[in-house]
């Protein structure tokens, strides 16, 4: 069944939200979601890289040989990441220092490589553009939603505006344990709310079938690698 343009676009926002449903690229989601400002910046950076790399890879999909496709994808993605790094360092130095290492780590963000492998290398330029945009927006929405809650409780502000008076903050929400906790609770709330409506919400670790580049090392992936090796031995 051919998907309409609108379906391709909204796929990343709802049905296959990269963060909530596929749990991809959650390092930056957890680390950056301390302030809304940082979360918006990270979302914009990731969306830019995702759209750029999707378009370029889709353009090159007939030229790139199948065997060396992963390194080729990585080079394209790394180029866009370097661009983003340079632009933010030059024009938004505050954002650059608050994102820190996570800006460079977009290179190994499973969302970007996953979309390159799963979508851009098989579909037309227009569709890949929409897919990248949808996935990027899906990521940004989730990271911003978590950031609103974390910033509110950890520093009492939303986007710098003070809401809770000083002295009533829960510092731990802004630190590492708070990130894990909120993410887990958010997921549980979604499962509960959607379960009541009779819909199923089923977060799985990473598996959208893009095994070729996934670094999660779930059982399927490990079985896959073992099988590959066996066929190699037979040869």
């Amino acid at each position, binding site marked *: 069944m051919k998907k309409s343009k609108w379906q391709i676009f909204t796929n990343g926002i709802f049905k296959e939200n990269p963060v909530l449903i596929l*749990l*991809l*690229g*959650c*390092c*930056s989601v*957890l*680390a950056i979601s301390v302030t809304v400002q940082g979360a918006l910046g990270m979302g914009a950076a990731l969306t830019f890289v995702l759209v750029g790399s999707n378009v370029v890879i889709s353009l090159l999909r007939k030229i790139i040989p199948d065997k060396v496709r*992963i*390194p080729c994808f*990585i*080079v394209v993605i*790394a*180029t866009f*990441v*370097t661009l983003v*790094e*340079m632009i933010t360092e030059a024009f938004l130095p505050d954002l650059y220092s608050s994102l820190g*290492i996570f800006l*460079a*780590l977009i*290179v*190994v*963000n*499973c969302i970007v*490589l996953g979309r390159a492998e799963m979508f851009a290398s098989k579909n037309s330029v227009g569709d890949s553009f929409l897919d990248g945009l949808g996935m990027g927006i899906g990521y940004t929405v989730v990271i911003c939603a978590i950031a609103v809650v974390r910033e509110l409780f950890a520093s009492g502000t939303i986007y710098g505006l003070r809401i809770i008076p000083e002295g009533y903050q829960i510092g*731990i929400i802004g*630190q*590492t*344990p*708070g*990130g*894990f*906790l909120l*993410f*887990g*609770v958010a*997921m*549980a*709330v979604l*499962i*509960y709310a959607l*379960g009541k409506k009779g819909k199923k919400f089923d*977060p*799985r*670790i*990473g598996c959208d079938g893009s095994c070729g*580049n*996934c*670094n*999660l*090392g*779930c*059982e399927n*992936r*490990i079985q896959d*690698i*073992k099988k590959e*090796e066996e066929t190699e031995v037979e040869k």
Partner: protein
Amino acid sequence: MTGATKLLLIAFSMIFTENYVLVQFIAICPFLGVSKKFDSSVGMSGAVIFVMTLASAVTWLIYNFIMVPLHIEYLSTIIFILVIAALVQFVEIVLKKFLKPLYNSLGIYLPLITTNCAVLAVTLLNISNTYNFLESVIDGLTAGVGFGLAMILFCGVRKAIERAKPPKCFEGLPITLVAAALTSMTFMGFTGIADALFK
């Protein structure tokens, strides 16, 4: 600070106070994905320690002897990820050929490491912290050990979760994330120790 104390400080903070997974949020994906089984946690940690140490050494040499003289420091992200990818392939081939027992225990985890954020992060942070060669290698080694420690600890925690019965909506991933929160809270206890120990 003398050289030896600095090395000790790096080692201590990488394993405990600045632990990549539980404090800095780097390499969460394999932490959640692989920690289900003890064997795979150990195998993955071994492979990460091995590759991180090697990658730290190789990228430091490439940066300081090739990239700095050519003034292409701004390409570090691209070059480092390619170096890591090539290195992982190379390690895989060498282990397969010469160290078969080690390959059998680590081999299947090596393809997962190219896109492990911890490896890229450690190489980039070595450069931005202006570490010298020995410090970089120790940084890579101990960051890997820290990753392994977090992984194996969390594997034990997950074993305990399997026997517990959480509310229905928390089953599966959500309770795992809550457990990760509690595990990382224990590591917050180390904050400040490094400064007091190595002043």
